[in-house]
């Protein structure tokens, strides 16, 4: 039977190598996913039961108490009275801050980077190539080198512990975004823009009415990559902001953990916060899975 399939598909017969490869693949998929299940299991467990049943595969003393506490349905005072731990966490606030932080930065980055990219792709102005090379070389500079000067600048501006201080380094542009979009803009046929220009359209109108609508694909790729990176950003928001009302998710979780008084950490509380911050990622993967995977793949093919 299999011979009829044709030569383009290698004959798939059982052999030990393939079986081993399948086995290893399944083990690695399990290792990737299982810790996330453990977080959920712990979050659904009763904190008093956990010490006796830590290794159980199902939640022990199933309860939604931890989630209610992390979401603020049960107040911090109430939790303290219940003996659930002295540290408080407000996931909804952190979630809102994270969403706002990501939305603002992604919007700004894409708007300004695409405008810069278009200028580099189509407009002629003195110093264009020099400026573009400067931007390309800025791609080589690792984040840590920029944190200190950025921190000093934000501090001098009096923006420590403010939202604008948190978004400042991200909202304007990134060299990668400019480079990425310029390459795409260069591939758009010139004729389209020429026709519009003959009709008297200005470069700004051409950019917004013709070029941007044609660039939905690359822009959404860029948007997904940037959102994932910013959603996970920890160092900078941690550095410039100690106002608890402005904390983004990763920072809020870290603070929650380090607030723990001595004694065993409040694992059920920590894991409920952890799992809640995974939920948006799940949703992203569920609804935009293919695009996410393809965007990440793209980041590798330059």
């Amino acid at each position: 039977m299999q011979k009829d399939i044709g030569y383009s598909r290698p004959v798939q017969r059982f052999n030990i190598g393939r079986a081993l490869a399948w086995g290893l693949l399944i083990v690695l998929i399990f290792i990737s996913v299982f810790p996330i299940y453990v977080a959920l299991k712990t979050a659904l467990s009763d904190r008093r039961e956990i010490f006796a049943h830590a290794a159980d595969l199902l939640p022990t003393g199933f309860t939604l108490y931890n989630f209610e506490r992390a979401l603020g349905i049960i107040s911090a005072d109430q939790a303290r009275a219940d003996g659930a731990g002295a540290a408080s966490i407000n996931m909804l606030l952190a979630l809102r801050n994270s969403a706002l932080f990501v939305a603002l930065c992604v919007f700004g980055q894409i708007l300004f980077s695409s405008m810069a990219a278009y200028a580099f792709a189509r407009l002629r102005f003195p110093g264009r190539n020099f400026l573009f090379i400067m931007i390309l070389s800025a791609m080589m500079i690792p984040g840590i080198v920029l944190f200190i000067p950025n921190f000093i600048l934000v501090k001098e501006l009096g923006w420590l512990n403010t939202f604008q201080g948190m978004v400042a380094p991200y909202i304007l542009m990134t060299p990668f975004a400019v480079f990425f979009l310029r390459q795409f803009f260069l591939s758009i046929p010139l004729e389209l823009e020429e026709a519009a220009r003959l009709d008297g359209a200005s470069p700004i109108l051409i950019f917004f009415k013709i070029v941007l609508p044609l660039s939905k694909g690359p822009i959404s790729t860029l948007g997904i990559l940037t959102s994932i990176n910013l959603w996970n950003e920890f160092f900078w928001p941690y550095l410039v902001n100690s106002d608890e009302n402005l904390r983004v998710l990763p920072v809020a979780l870290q603070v929650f953990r380090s607030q723990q008084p001595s004694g065993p950490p409040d694992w059920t509380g920590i894991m409920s916060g952890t799992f809640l911050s995974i939920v948006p990622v799940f949703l992203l993967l569920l609804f935009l899975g293919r695009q996410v995977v393809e965007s990440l793949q793209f980041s590798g093919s330059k």
Partner: protein
Amino acid sequence: MGLANYQTMINDPAFWNALKTTVLYVLYNIPFQTVLGLFLAVAMDRLSKSMFVRGALILPYLLSNVIAAMIWVWMLDPLLGMVNAFLAIFGIPHISFLGTTENALGSVALINIWRHMGLTALLFYAGLQGIPKNVYEAATIDGSSEWTTFWKITLPLLRPVTVFVMVTSIVGSFQIFDTVAVATQGGPVDATRVLVFYIYDNAFRFFKMGYATALSMTLFAILIFFSIVQLRLFRADQSDLS
């Protein structure tokens, strides 16, 4: 003057310790991450192109470093952690993964291998899609085994992608900070005080901005050096296809 900070650095044993720790961390991290990523990429390519497999493998990368560290600190807990419970089945006594100087750095590397394995795989996988199918057909007709095909065809043709993945992951690995900040805070006894953590200490805890800048410029120089050496070593610009 400006160079005084570099003078201090050369005579600072804590700097040398941080550098050694970072290099050790990179050595723990990169080989495992790259080999596992490469295996997964080939497995996805040859065994299952399902989106579910790719989605499951990429899930850890979509979590922030902080969350990954948080989950693993719990998994690796010396008394209550899942990993020790699992090892106990085989009669292995409880291990303090993050609490001893011998284990801490390796455990931090483990957390990051877990988070980056899927991304590395995805990048290699994208590279595999660029290898023309007829090369494989020719190999199959010649009776080449899967194993030989991998070593003689896939790996050499994948070289530009391998260079890209290695350069970006080494550059990223040298900058490890978040996981350390959550899991160990540089301890126990400096065992995980990597370079970026030491820079952070100097800049934002001791407020020695000048010294911290000197350290970060040194890190920058190391990264540039690595990128150039790797690109040279692997002849990144030439593929064996051309």
